[in-house]
């Protein structure tokens, strides 16, 4: 048991002695230990690049189209008229633009650049693995070839979880990693001798689930000849689709992992980069299959 702090909070650990490192002593709300933000590519003055637009008029026109909001107002109409009236604007140029191809090229651009540039060299690390995803597809017994056929529908890029964990443990500062969970209690001072202990939860490492897993592990038989401390690595996985650009429809679906042994106050600090990406999912709806059509997902 630890001493109560000035907020009358105290901890109960389940070991023979208190942990070597108090992983919270080093936590403050204004942690100065923020790593510098990733360097942005230096901006150099370059001649105007119009990207996929064949001419300046098309570029201006697209600029008006995208930046004028979703609802066309009279204000936007006036802006359009001003644009058409601008010196250098050529209606012929705007007309001659293949708009479908131009809009489509935004997505295509992102894809081709992401597969060739060195931006993705980390993807080709030995650390990243490409695994084909195969699903069983059932065919009705009255069909020409009934039964189950296995179809490869795409690839999943992912890392080996073990290597992510190893990398983490090797590099994490012990002072910021909770090797043992604890129960947190609040015992407010009372007028008489009675003591109330209120259980407080706010981190994964003081949750009942972590404490239970920890105790189960400690109570399991020791591996012969090994007296090393046994530690639960608390993995928290989450995934969410993310859009890559404001204009195109290019998307990624990453799977992330957090370590529940670390404080939420540190995890939520993006500059500390405690979130690991472990996989990238493909959208099934966009994968052309051998059946000739894409499988649509509701």
């Amino acid at each position, binding site marked *: 048991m630890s001493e109560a702090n000035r907020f009358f909070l105290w901890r109960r650990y389940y070991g023979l002695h208190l942990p070597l490192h108090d992983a919270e002593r080093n936590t403050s709300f204004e942690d100065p230990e923020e790593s510098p933000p990733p360097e942005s590519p230096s901006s150099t003055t370059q001649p105007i690049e119009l990207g996929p637009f064949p001419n300046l008029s098309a570029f201006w026109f697209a600029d008006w189209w995208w930046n004028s909001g979703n609802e066309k107002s009279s204000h936007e109409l006036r802006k359009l008229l001003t644009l058409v009236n601008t010196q250098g604007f050529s209606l012929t140029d705007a007309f001659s633009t293949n708009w479908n191809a131009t809009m489509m090229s935004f997505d295509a651009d992102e894809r081709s650049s992401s597969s060739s540039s060195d931006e993705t060299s980390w993807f080709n690390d030995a650390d990243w693995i490409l695994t084909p995803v195969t699903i069983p597809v059932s065919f009705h017994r009255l069909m020409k070839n009934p039964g189950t056929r296995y179809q490869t529908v795409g690839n999943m890029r992912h890392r080996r979880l073990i290597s992510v964990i190893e990398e983490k443990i090797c590099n994490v500062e012990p002072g910021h990693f909770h090797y043992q969970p604890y129960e947190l209690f609040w015992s407010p001072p009372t007028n008489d001798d009675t003591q109330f202990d209120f259980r407080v939860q706010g981190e994964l490492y003081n949750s009942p*689930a972590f404490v239970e*897993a920890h105790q189960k592990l400690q109570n399991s038989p020791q591996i012969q000849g090994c007296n090393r401390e*046994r530690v639960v690595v608390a*993995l928290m*996985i989450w995934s969410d689709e993310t859009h890559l650009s404001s204009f195109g429809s290019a998307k990624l679906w990453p799977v992330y992992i957090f370590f529940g042994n670390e404080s939420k106050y540190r995890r939520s600090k993006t500059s500390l980069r405690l979130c690991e990406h472990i996989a990238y999912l493909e959208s099934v709806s966009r994968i052309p299959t051998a059946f000739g059509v894409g499988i649509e997902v509701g």
Partner: protein
Amino acid sequence: MEHGIVIMGRDGIERRFFPTFFTYSADYPEK
């Protein structure tokens, strides 16, 4: 994973680690 994995931390101490999934959150494909 029955026996965990032994990894040495930056404090030079080897510990035996047992990875466990505690939370998993995801959503359905958006429209």
